[in-house]
């Protein structure tokens, strides 16, 4: 019963969203209009809070939309928590013996449930737009567009991936969630990632509304910046958690595989970062407006493209869901509709503006001569580099798709491509980052920049040299460490810095991330051996050495799995041990590797074990006393998470009102 109520709530939500989307057109048609509607191109109108009375409806409607979506989600979660196996989705993806947290998380561990979550987040942002922005024409149109997108996805959910479909006759027990997804990080990873993906829709709606009204001024830039920042922070947190999950759960010891699905989340993040910088530039110096518009539009398009790639299963990916081609085509249609129309509108406005700009008073500063040693120039280079990175990632992600389409051969692009191509861009990016504290808006004097370089460069070079001499690393790592230090010092320098607080944190985080990633992925050491009880394995690099002894192999039973655990004791440190295991989950008989990780601030020790299984029908129950062991030493791995965390924190900090302007509401 409650399941049907949830379904009806979703249908109602579709009606409400459509109504909200149609409000402005009702006004255009002349209904409810008190006064004659003026030319919408006049910016003075958009500041006018007294508009057509029909807009009084928008807040209650947005609220209703949000509550209906929330209710539908709650009903589905309820079905999962109560293990209601008369619902097809619950039967497919849950099991009565699963811990409650994972029953809960199973709701978005599949296509239908995650689309429902997607819709919920869309409606959340619609409600936020309705309640936290003033009633201006721009904001009303923004809300309408946001609801329109929401309606589109609600319709998709209802007609092509109904999460409330029933199973008749109902089953006794479920099929279980893919156990590889049974990890706390994955319980919160999808909501965070979706807040990021979908948060970009708010920025997109605002920009599209501005384009339609031809009203893209500081108000637009400020609210777009807030939405983009929210999305950017969530997206960063989501990506980090995803990488953390892959590191802990996949058992390969890596955290980023340049997999299409990972790339799909990275592309919007890169574009959103570029967009944020362009928006900042526009707010401060009235320059780079077209870039800002374009990047905001593209960022949401990239996140839609990402959804398409993940959901349609067109790409060969380790993360592929079981897929349905029809859904893929429908999503592709939605994506092209939204992206195509917005980009066409942008192009049309630009062409129409082209003749006017020469005569208008607020001539964009892009025509002004920009000093090379100014913040704007830095921002512009930064935007260019980030966009290039995104284009390169996109090229390699989509290339196999086109190749297969035209030639029929299947291929993929290897990780070395990304490493080779992206490294120079990223290093250049970080090099510019280090200069930012001395670059002011409008320009800085050459002598000041020189003095700064003479002060910081020795620190950076020293760090790089130390890596070469003491840790005996490769030149790439040394350069990465030097540039990382260079940017870090720049970000931490407080005296007469031109940085905002949040930006400083974000940049420091990026610098730490660069150093940590370079060390963890280029100087890691791996040992693979077959070991018996009592044997020892030593893993060492230039700076540290660790010896582990295989002390015990035993069986253990968990809530919905049985595992075979090996205990390794540290020889150097008494009493400390690591216990990697192989688990077999009950309902599905799927085995997973559970890595054991010893972390400290210098390095991670990562152990995984395996046993040989001869056949599916003969499970490896015989407990022999030898197993294959892989030990990895990953320097500074801990700082990858810290760096990413600081970057996200910087984004959140930028959202808080600055000392001077304590404005609560969005403009």
């Amino acid at each position, binding site marked *: 019963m409650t399941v049907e109520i949830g379904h009806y709530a979703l249908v109602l939500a579709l009606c409400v969203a459509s109504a909200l989307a149609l409000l402005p057109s009702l006004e255009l048609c002349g209904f409810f209009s008190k006064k004659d509607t003026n030319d919408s191109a006049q910016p003075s109108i958009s500041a006018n809070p007294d508009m057509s009375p029909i807009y009084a409806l928008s807040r209650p409607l947005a609220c209703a939309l949000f509550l209906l979506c929330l209710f539908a989600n709650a009903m589905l979660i309820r079905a999962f928590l109560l293990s209601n196996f008369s619902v097809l989705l619950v039967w497919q993806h849950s099991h009565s013996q699963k811990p409650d947290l994972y029953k809960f998380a199973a709701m978005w561990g599949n296509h239908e449930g995650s689309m429902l979550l997607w819709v919920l987040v869309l409606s959340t942002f619609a409600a936020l737009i309705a309640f936290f922005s003033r009633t201006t024409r721009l904001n009303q149109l923004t809300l309408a567009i946001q609801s329109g997108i929401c309606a589109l996805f609600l319709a998709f959910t209802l007609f092509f991936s109904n999460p409330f479909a029933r199973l008749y006759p109902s089953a006794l027990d479920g099929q279980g969630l893919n156990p590889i997804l049974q990890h706390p990080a994955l319980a919160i990873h999808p909501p965070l990632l979706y807040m990021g993906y979908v948060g970009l829709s708010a920025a997109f709606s605002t920009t599209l509304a501005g384009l339609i009204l031809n009203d893209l001024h500081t108000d637009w830039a400020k609210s777009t910046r807030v939405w983009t920042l929210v999305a950017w922070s969530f997206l960063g947190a989501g990506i980090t958690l995803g990488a953390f999950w892959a590191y802990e759960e996949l058992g390969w010891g890596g955290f980023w595989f340049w997999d299409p699905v990972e790339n799909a989340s990275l592309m919007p993040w890169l574009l959103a970062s570029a967009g944020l910088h362009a928006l900042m530039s526009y707010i401060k110096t009235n320059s780079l407006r077209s870039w800002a518009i374009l990047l905001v539009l593209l960022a949401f398009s990239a996140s839609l493209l990402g959804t398409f790639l993940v959901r349609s299963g067109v790409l060969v990916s380790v993360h592929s869901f*079981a897929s349905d081609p029809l859904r893929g085509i429908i999503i592709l249609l939605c994506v092209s509709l939204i992206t195509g129309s917005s980009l066409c509108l942008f192009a049309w406005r630009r062409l129409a503006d082209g003749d006017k700009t020469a005569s208008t008073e607020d001539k964009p500063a892009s025509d002004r001569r920009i000093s090379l040693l100014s913040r704007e120039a830095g921002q512009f280079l930064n935007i260019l580099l980030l966009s290039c990175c995104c284009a390169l990632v996109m090229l390699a992600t989509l290339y196999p798709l086109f190749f297969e389409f035209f030639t029929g*051969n299947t*291929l*993929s*692009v290897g990780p070395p491509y990304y490493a*080779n191509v992206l490294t120079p861009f990223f290093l250049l990016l970080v090099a510019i980052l280090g200069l930012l504290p001395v670059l002011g808006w409008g320009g800085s004097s050459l002598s000041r920049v020189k003095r700064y370089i003479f002060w910081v460069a020795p620190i950076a070079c020293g760090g790089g040299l130390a890596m070469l001499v003491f840790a005996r690393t490769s030149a790439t790592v040394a350069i990465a460490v030097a540039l990382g230090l260079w940017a870090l010092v720049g970000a931490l320098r407080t005296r007469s810095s031109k940085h905002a607080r949040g930006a400083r944190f974000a940049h420091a985080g990026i610098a730490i991330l660069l150093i940590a990633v370079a060390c963890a992925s280029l100087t890691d050491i791996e040992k693979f051996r*077959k070991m018996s009880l009592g044997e020892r394995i030593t893993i060492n690099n230039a700076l540290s050495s660790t010896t582990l002894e295989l002390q015990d192999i035993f069986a253990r039973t968990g809530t919905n799995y049985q595992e075979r655990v090996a205990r390794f004791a540290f020889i150097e440190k008494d009493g400390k041990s690591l216990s990697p295991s192989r688990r077999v989950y009950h309902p599905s008989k799927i085995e997973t590797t559970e890595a054991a990780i010893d972390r400290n601030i210098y390095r991670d020790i990562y152990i995984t074990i395996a046993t040989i299984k*001869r056949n599916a029908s003969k499970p490896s129950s015989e407990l022999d006393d030898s197993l294959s062991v892989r030990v990895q030493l990953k320097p500074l791995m801990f700082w990858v998470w810290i760096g990413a965390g600081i970057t996200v924190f910087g984004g959140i900090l930028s959202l808080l009102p600055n000392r001077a302007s304590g404005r609560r509401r969005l403009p």
Partner: protein
Amino acid sequence: MKGRIHKRMIRRLAAIAMLLTCASLGVFFILSALRENIVFFLVPSDIAPIKASEDELEGKGNGESLVGRRIRLGGLVVEGSLMQDATSGEVSFTLTDGQARVAVSYRGLLPDLFREGQGVVAIGEITSRAPDKRGRATFRAERVLAKHDEYYMPRGLEKSLKKRSLWREQP
């Protein structure tokens, strides 16, 4: 006035020319990086053992010799072929697509879902296409992937199996 415009034109043209040169150089490097790192998905019959004289392969890989090139090899693990070296822990197994067989050696942990008789993907390079004692090409894997979830099948393999009507639906 006219002279100034002329000068500006020349300067602009020079800038555009510079930009184009840089961009095309960049695109050239990027495309060549892409080309070098393309990993083809092949099945055992694509790399069936051949005599040393004809190690050119038509169609796939642009006719280049495939030996030493990074590829993804998809196939079914032959029942009873999985072996492990007692001291080094190195494993070896045979992959097949119903026509040809490839001997794969791998130093590392096999994935969780690795089973004999099931589809896997091995990423690595072909060490030799000369047939070994049992008539197989040899392949050295850097990483072995098995089905990520219960329903996942490497797409390229599924296609190739269907072509040879060896495909059977998973239970």
